[in-house]
């Protein structure tokens, strides 16, 4: 039983009733669970995981749309400390990944630290008490350290289309799929052609009456080498764990080669572009459709997608790809800018997530009462993607510039968890109440990332992607080899932080520095 998780009276001023913890983690996806498990493994138990939903899993819990699957092989897309020899496919589908996360949470006994239904509505740094005041829909918490693992692919982005609210049929975002809504025989509009769309379109195309895919920019799509894992391979993984680790290492290295093309020299992307072009030519014969599906930007500028059934699905007899741009939505139809109106029963928004303006940033307020969103209004800045000046004892997981498009996000998350864990241990070892990074360190990190981003395909590839903020800066992706990120975040860069020892009078880090 989780008797320790009794929720205090839910009054905003009831801070005396607030539950006191050493660490509060927001979110229980790969990042939140990874952090919680790291704490547990070194014996730390005084922490909570604040989860707005009713279960662990984050992005993999929420994205249950038909066809949802990972674009990275499961042998790589999993925790290094929790290999799973029983993956059913080389690239797992959502239910299996979600089951893995649940099983891993149970195995490391972190579920009892989770407070479900706790949507963080505000988190405020109290300089006098040297605590974070965290208000959630499941009560108040006071935490010495706040770790946001709220993630980048957490809050669905809804497109600003005139009339969308007047639509009489069902509108659903791919990340909030309504399974009770039967699509068979429906005329379905899918808006968007990103990573979610190319999975959901082939999954629903055979059952719907007709499917119209509204495309703004075509994606580069390469073949998916997905296959079931044979039972004997699974047995081999069970009895020879080193083999699975070896394959994981191979997959990691293989994917890291892509960085050479993406971030160093775009020439090396040419064979990948050729592969994608051949894939399209093989799967789509219609010359007009082929043209509409051919990107005009350098491969890799937007995320490279992998699929064997997306092209056949949009070329299917009941499918239409529309490139004219949506002008408005009417109660029973979608109207494009060329004046064509298509009768529509259901609209699927495969329009992605709010990435460059993380919604959690509006709710976290630092030392001077300013929200993270305010501080970031000119773009997200941080030291080592994990700490922000003016926000003492706050650490970010899956924050700015840790995103990757070519390999496993879990590798980046584990790098970050190790860094944050080192920060926590440093605080303990030095008896610090407060640890805060400096604006100078932040500036140094910003210019390091900007320098590395120069000439990369994301900036120079001729596309507008969700990787870039509205100023055209790369604030989401790590623009280099991922092992370089790991090296840079292996240990806490103590020199870039100002610490206030327990009992010492409050002092502004600027002064102390």
């Amino acid at each position, binding site marked *: 039983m989780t008797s320790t998780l009794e929720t205090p009276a839910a009054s905003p001023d009831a801070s005396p009733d607030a539950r006191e913890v050493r660490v509060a983690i927001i979110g229980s996806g790969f990042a939140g669970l990874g952090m919680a498990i790291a704490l547990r493994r070194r014996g730390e138990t005084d922490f909570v995981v604040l989860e707005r939903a009713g279960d662990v899993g984050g992005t993999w819990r929420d994205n249950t749309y038909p066809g949802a699957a990972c674009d990275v092989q499961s042998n790589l897309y999993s925790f290094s400390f929790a290999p799973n020899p029983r993956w059913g496919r080389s690239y797992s589908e959502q239910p299996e990944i979600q089951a893995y996360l649940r099983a891993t949470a149970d195995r490391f006994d972190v579920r009892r630290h989770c407070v479900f239904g706790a949507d963080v509505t505000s988190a405020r740094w109290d300089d006098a008490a040297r605590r974070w005041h965290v208000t959630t829909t499941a009560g108040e918490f006071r935490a010495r350290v706040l770790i946001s693992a709220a993630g980048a692919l957490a809050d669905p982005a809804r497109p600003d289309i005139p009339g969308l609210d007047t639509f009489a049929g069902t509108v659903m975002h791919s990340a909030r799929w309504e399974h009770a809504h039967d699509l068979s025989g429906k*005329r379905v509009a899918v808006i968007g052609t990103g990573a979610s769309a190319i999975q959901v379109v082939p999954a629903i195309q055979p059952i719907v*009456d*007709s499917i*119209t895919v509204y495309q703004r920019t075509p994606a580069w799509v390469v073949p998916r080498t997905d296959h079931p894992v044979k039972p004997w391979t699974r047995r081999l993984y069970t009895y020879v764990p080193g083999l699975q680790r070896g394959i994981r290492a191979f997959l990691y290295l293989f994917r890291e080669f892509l960085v050479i093309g993406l971030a160093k020299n775009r020439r090396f992307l040419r064979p990948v572009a050729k592969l994608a072009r051949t894939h399209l030519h093989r799967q789509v*014969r*219609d*010359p*007009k*459709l082929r043209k509409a599906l051919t990107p005009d930007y350098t491969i890799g500028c937007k995320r490279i997608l992998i699929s064997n059934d997306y092209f056949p699905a949009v*070329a*299917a*007899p*009941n*499918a*239409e790809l529309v490139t004219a741009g949506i*002008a*408005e939505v009417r109660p029973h*139809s979608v*109207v494009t800018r060329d*004046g*064509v*109106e*298509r*009768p529509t029963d259901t609209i699927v928004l495969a329009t992605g997530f709010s990435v460059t303006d993380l919604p959690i940033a509006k709710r976290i307020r630092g030392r001077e009462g300013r929200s993270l969103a305010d501080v970031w209004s000119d773009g997200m800045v941080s030291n080592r993607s994990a700490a922000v000046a003016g926000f003492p004892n706050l650490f970010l997981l899956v924050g700015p510039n840790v995103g990757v498009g070519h390999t496993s996000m879990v590798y980046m998350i584990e790098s970050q968890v190790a860094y944050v864990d080192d920060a926590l241990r440093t605080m303990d070892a030095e008896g610090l109440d407060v640890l805060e990074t400096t604006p100078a360190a932040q500036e140094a990190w910003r210019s390091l990332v900007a320098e590395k981003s120069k000439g990369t395909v994301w900036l120079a590839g001729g596309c507008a992607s969700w990787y870039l903020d509205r100023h055209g800066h790369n604030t989401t992706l790590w623009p280099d080899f991922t092992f370089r990120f790991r090296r840079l975040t292996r240990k806490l860069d103590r020199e870039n932080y100002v610490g206030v020892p327990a009992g010492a009078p409050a002092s502004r880090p600027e002064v102390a520095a």
Partner: protein
Amino acid sequence: MHTVWRRVAAVRTPDGAQLHAVVDGSEDAPVTLVLAHGWTLAQAAWDDVADLLAPRIADGELRLIRYDQRGHGRSTWPSPTHPDAEISIDQLGADLASLLDQLVPTGPVVLGGHSMGGMTIMCLAAARPELFGDRVRGVALVSTSAGDLTSDPRSAAGRMAALKPGVLNAALAGAVLVEKLRTLLPPSHPRHRRMVRELLYGADASDAMVLAGAEIMHASTVRAFITFMPALDEHDKRENLSALTRVPVEIFVGDEDKLTPPRHSRQLADALPDAQLHQVERTGHMLPQERPQLLVDALLRLLEAALDDRAAA
């Protein structure tokens, strides 16, 4: 904003083939025009005609349905659970009947067919004569034939028919290889376009026309080419055209047509004494591309007559 309705539909046939149809215009339009394309083409062959009709569709005067014949364009072959599905022009006529049943269950219809699409309409007329006069109120037969396509060994069709079945079967078995070889000489290649122009187009055809047509044909499969070739050879509806005598028919042929030379259209006109025959100068087999305005004028005449009919009835 003034809009034009459009939807795509997959017409399901009894043997599991799905036909890709594009429906332009409102369900409330007083009359529907259905256009059927020819061998190794696709509904895009009617694009020029459709473009000219667009303002009238936008004004609600008619609804237009274009579709890909089975095995062509984006339409599929029969499902693998029907391995013995017949490949014949009669089957295409049955497909057109399925399309009418599913997409135009009521209201007057005008049919237009180019080449194999014209034969498709003749097969529909033979199999479902009751539709003609009542539902189908007018027909345009373009660069087509009622049969006897290959008896003249000097004609292009005759020369193709002279290919031995063994050759065709070998090509079908090696379709993957043949497809690869085809990519060596794409429509962008001048020699490819020259061959297409010589076989299919008349003297006035522009290079852009030839390229557009060549691209449509290049997208069709070796399988469609080979499996429909004997079906075209077997097509013979010369004694089965009576249903077409009940509706206005306009017949078009280019005087330089090498695949279905003018004698085929004259034969049709003989069998359909009330039909209007138009032999168009300096024009080849690709009449919908070469003379779209001419066809649109005829189609509008037929559409108008279809509505007058209804008013009279």
